[in-house]
């Protein structure tokens, strides 16, 4: 069966510090991968998606970036965090089937 992992689960970072969140999927090959941000009381905002290694589509211009160095690994990064980057970050995957499967999420607090 397929599983999706995210780490860390919780992160507190100062403004201006770098960020690296990691997502890995097990039990499948060539998944589509997604990063979402969920601000407090808000819906899910699609940040990036990837349909293959090295292929990244950005949905919202901001100080975040994403990379896909391996087939089942998706990384969300920032060189300098802003207060507005605080939120709950969710990674998701899918194949040709149409529903997405979500990871457990990372709660990021920028102070």
């Amino acid at each position: 069966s397929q599983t999706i992992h995210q780490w860390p689960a919780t992160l507190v970072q100062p403004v201006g510090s770098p960020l690296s969140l990691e997502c890995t999927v097990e039990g499948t090959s060539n998944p589509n991968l997604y990063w979402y941000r969920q601000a407090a009381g808000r819906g899910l905002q699609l940040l990036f998606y990837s349909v293959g290694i090295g292929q990244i589509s950005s949905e919202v211009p901001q100080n975040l970036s994403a990379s896909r160095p391996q087939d089942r690994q998706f990384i969300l990064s920032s060189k300098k965090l802003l207060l507005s980057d605080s939120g709950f970050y969710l990674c998701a995957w899918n194949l040709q089937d149409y529903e997405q499967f979500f990871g457990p999420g990372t709660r990021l607090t920028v102070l």
Partner: protein
Amino acid sequence: AQTVTQSQPEMSVQEAETVTLSCTYDTSESNYYLFWYKQPPSRQMILVIRQEAYKQQNATENRFSVNFQKAAKSFSLKISDSQLGDTAMYFCAFRPGTYKYIFGTGTRLKVLA
């Protein structure tokens, strides 16, 4: 722009009663997929039900069913025999193309004992 609107930020229902959550969307696509996801306090997103736009029959999963009105671009979720474990945030979403999913802002449902 393709959007999803959930007009009910919060709702409550008595245990064992029925509740309906509303969702409308806007798209020019003719074929797409619709979903309802549940996010309990653990924040793990769980698929509740899905609907293909080309299917006229409304999807049903146990106590969960949808009322899909394609012409009206409406996709409501009905929860029958509500249980305490149904307390969660519910998100309506649709996929108009091949990859992108668009989510609504959610409805927080509280089931009362």
